């Protein structure tokens, strides 16, 4: 029991980190799901959108905005740069779908997957041209600042402010998102298209536009994930690997399911962080993929998915 009591603060500390990473995966997984529901394809460049978002924020907008606003404006430059990044991601999402999805919309999904793969390669190499090969560091709102608290007298837990910020920010984003989908006309149109494209277009919804907006929204989510991650995970091409973890999260949660994406993300993030410290740090990613394969073999519909997958 002593051992457990000793370990508890450490586990709590790591769980908080795991949940923060999980939120990031969840946001990107949501993007996969929205696109999947709308057009039945998986955008393999989604992870690279995270990277583009991170670079746009850390390497492009933060320096520019900071020079506009002058010193001592960390807070307002963060929010301004975040907003600009979101706008930039709308552009990235719209242009990407126009080039790699729209012309192929009637082709076999495999062809579209290959074209998003080519987009992924393009984006990685474009990032080299645009932002160089060195990782970019940025401080965000809190930098590497952390705080401590005492856990029921068992020990001290040390947590980065950024982790807490990620949790809070994601929670607020999800509330806003759910209001958007249920209250606004655009949100309802997006849901209608996701449910049944044909019926939606018969009801007079401009389906191609809504699909483009869905892509744009998915890339905003990826971009925001990049911004949130930037202060704790140097911005580099390696950020694209988030895409795979997020894909895992969406499968674990149940592909196409909104709550599933988030729960899957939290689960993947926790598994990753805990296995890094209790199993093996070099094999943490391998463990995540083993979990993924186990899910696909034993429960392919995921935690929240419908039973029938059909001919995906």
């Amino acid at each position: 029991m002593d051992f457990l009591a000793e370990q508890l603060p450490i586990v709590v500390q790591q769980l908080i980190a795991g949940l923060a990473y999980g939120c990031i995966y969840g946001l990107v997984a949501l993007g996969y799901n929205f696109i999947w529901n709308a057009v039945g394809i998986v955008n393999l460049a989604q992870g690279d959108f995270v990277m583009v978002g991170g670079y746009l924020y850390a390497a492009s907008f933060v320096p520019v905005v900071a020079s506009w606003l002058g010193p001592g404006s960390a807070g307002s430059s963060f929010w301004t740069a975040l907003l600009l990044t979101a706008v930039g991601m709308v552009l990235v999402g719209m242009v990407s779908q126009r080039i790699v999805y729209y012309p192929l919309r009637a082709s076999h999904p495999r062809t579209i997957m290959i074209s998003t793969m080519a987009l992924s390669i393009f984006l990685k190499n474009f990032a080299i041209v645009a932002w160089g090969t060195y990782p970019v560091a940025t401080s965000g709102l809190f930098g590497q600042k952390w705080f401590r608290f005492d856990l029921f007298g068992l020990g001290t837990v040390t947590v980065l402010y950024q982790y807490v910020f990620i949790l809070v920010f994601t929670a607020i984003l999800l509330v806003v998102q759910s209001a958007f989908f249920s209250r606004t006309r655009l949100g309802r149109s997006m849901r209608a298209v996701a449910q049944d494209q044909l019926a939606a277009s018969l009801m007079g919804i401009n389906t191609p536009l809504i699909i483009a907006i869905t892509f744009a929204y998915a890339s905003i989510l990826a971009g925001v994930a990049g911004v949130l991650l930037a202060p704790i995970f140097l911005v580099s091409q390696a950020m694209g690997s988030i895409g795979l973890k997020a894909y895992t999260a969406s499968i674990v949660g149940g592909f196409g399911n909104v709550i599933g994406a988030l729960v899957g993300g939290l689960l993947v993030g926790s598994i990753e962080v805990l296995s890094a410290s209790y199993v093996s740090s070099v094999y943490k990613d391998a463990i995540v993929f083993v979990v993924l394969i186990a899910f696909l073999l034993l429960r392919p519909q995921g935690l929240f998915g419908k039973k029938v997958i059909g001919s995906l």
Partner: protein
Amino acid sequence: MGIRSLSMKDKTLIGIILVLAALYPLITNSYMKFVLMTGIVNALLVVGLHFIFGLTGQLHMAMAAFWGVGSYAFALAVTRLSWPYWLGVFAAIVAVGLLGLLLGFPTLRLKGFYLAITTIGFGEIVRLILLNWAPVTGGVFGVAGLPRPTIGPLQFGKNQPFYYLLLAILALLTLAARMIEHSKYGAAFRAVHDDELAAEAVGLDPTRLKILAFVLCGVYAGIGGAMYASLMQYISPEVYTLERSQMLAMMLVIGGMGSLPGAIMGSVLLTFLPEVLRFLQQWYLAVYGAIVIVIIVYRPTGLWGIWVRATEWIATLLKRRGDTRGAA
């Protein structure tokens, strides 16, 4: 059997092999000669991928893992175990064939993107093992001092003879792939690709056929992996990545899905494309990605489709000229 009785695909295959044979001495730059050799090794892998991706239509994204296990099985067999060269190649074939079997089983149930993500995960697991199981794989340092082959009195240590050996292996394996494609297995693979339910209704076992396709792909990847190791004479884990798997899949798609000549054209040309674009300096890989997107989106039949149309166009042009001459 005269040349006229061969199909257009077969003629093109023979033509490609002959062009590749003639190309080597024509290239003067020794670096470019090496790139051409890499292109041949890529073609070996892509012809293997053709069985799964092209014929059976399964999204196999762990090609780099197959290829890496082939390289390592060969490298470890000839260095650690001091096995003879060709026994090492055989070990690579067996190792990757077994890996194909292991990966083939999950495909019992998984389709489409689910299969894609499974193979991606599988590939990453293999890559991490190659990277981190240092006592066996040598970790980040890889395995050095790998030999080039000999066959009896013939030495293939120098690049030129080794190139022609690689080309001969490619020709042989392409012939084998062509034979399988034209046999009952080729038709059965394509039937599974078209409609699994209907395939079962005419007595085909889709699972067995898919596993077979994975194993065949594994055999090619084993040979390709061993040849790559022998070409480089040194291997390290950082090349066997997801990006490489994607690259190989794209070579097949750009070449023209489901056609062997396209697979080889795509492999060689896409291996060269980045080198040709080097004058663009830092832009070259981004432009490469853009070119790939443009071909996939606007020329979905790939290089093979372009080639077919070009030859048809030339044929009608020649015919028209012949007709006018006949009229005059």
